[in-house]
């Protein structure tokens, strides 16, 4: 039974696309068949983060408008064969997205994949509304910072009122993913604590992704962090989050970077 998952946040720049790529790849690495869809029409980036930017021929809008078949628009990942991408259009207007068209595509993808992951654009406009519309599960990406938490609260309200599931009186499964977390700053009282964010938003925690240079490095080279650096702190944190999405029970820890000693640092610099 396929699951449709929306990765959303309200606020921009908190890590929706990074998290979509990392979770999508992690699920695919575990043998599940996954398609990730970019809903950010006009500002697409999921293709870039996945390293598929030069392979996009047809996009979501082409399929919505009937100009291309779904099978023509799906781009299969070269590293993990169970991972596919449906890119957003870079040139078209987001008004070209229709509820009927998106619903039809998602219904078709449900037949073919175990997971359909919708990468929502920032904001609460059409693109974001349609990305969450047909979802069964939501991952709310939040930074431990006031504006991000406020926007997440707003998005949680929309997930509970504007999705098809909510309108049918069904339960909308929601998970909180805290990203760009810095344990040292939390300890010093400079950053909102995980338990504070959890208490305020009151949805279950899917994972805590530590701030790490590995995340930027992964996007630089166009490879999800779970593929590019699976043993790094964020890599392990996303792997654990993906397991929890599948219903596995994994102890909640915040992975930390294995600190390189002085000698290995000097050695690495010399190398």
């Amino acid at each position, binding site marked *: 039974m396929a699951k449709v998952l929306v990765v959303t946040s309200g606020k921009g720049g908190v890590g929706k696309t990074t998290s979509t790529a990392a979770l999508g790849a992690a699920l695919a690495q575990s043998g599940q068949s996954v398609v990730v869809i970019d809903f950010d029409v006009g500002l697409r980036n999921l293709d870039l983060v996945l390293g598929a930017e030069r392979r996009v021929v047809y996009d979501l809008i082409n399929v919505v408008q009937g100009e291309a078949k779904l099978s023509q628009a799906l781009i299969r990942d070269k590293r993990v064969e169970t991972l596919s991408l449906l890119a957003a259009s870079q040139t078209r207007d987001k008004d070209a997205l229709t509820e009927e068209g998106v619903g039809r595509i998602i219904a078709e993808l449900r037949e073919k994949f175990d997971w359909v992951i919708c990468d929502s654009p920032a904001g609460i406009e059409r693109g974001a509304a349609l990305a969450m519309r047909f979802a069964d599960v939501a991952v709310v990406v939040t930074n431990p910072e006031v504006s991000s938490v406020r926007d997440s609260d707003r998005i949680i309200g929309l997930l509970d009122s504007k999705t098809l599931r909510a309108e049918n009186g069904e339960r909308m499964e929601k998970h909180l993913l805290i990203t760009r977390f810095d344990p040292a700053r*939390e300890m010093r009282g400079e950053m909102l604590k995980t338990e504070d964010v959890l208490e305020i938003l009151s949805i279950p925690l899917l994972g805590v992704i530590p701030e790490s240079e590995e995340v930027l490095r992964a996007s630089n080279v166009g490879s999800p962090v779970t593929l590019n650096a699976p043993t790094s702190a964020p890599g392990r944190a996303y792997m654990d989050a993906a397991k929890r999405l599948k219903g596995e029970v994994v102890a909640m820890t915040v992975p930390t970077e294995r600190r390189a000693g002085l000698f290995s640092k000097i050695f690495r610099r010399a190398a």
Partner: protein
Amino acid sequence: MNLLSFFQRRRGSAPIARDRLQMLLAHERAALGQRDLVAVLREEILAVIAKHVRVDQDKVRVKMDRRNAISTLEVDIEIETGTGQTRLALAG
């Protein structure tokens, strides 16, 4: 730097962030689904006043301050009179 701010700095700013968020979201969740209360109050108060005196819409200022126990709404209206200008301030 006084003693209080010294201790606040040591305590970190995260507790302030948490308290501000809890208060703000309590208000925002309560207002969800309702019309913008400030806008409604503004229109209705102005309609009552406009029955008796002429009100220039550009000379109306509405201020809202939400605090823990009480919230205040301030309506400041400039009224044209024959002799000059009078300001009418309402607070509630």
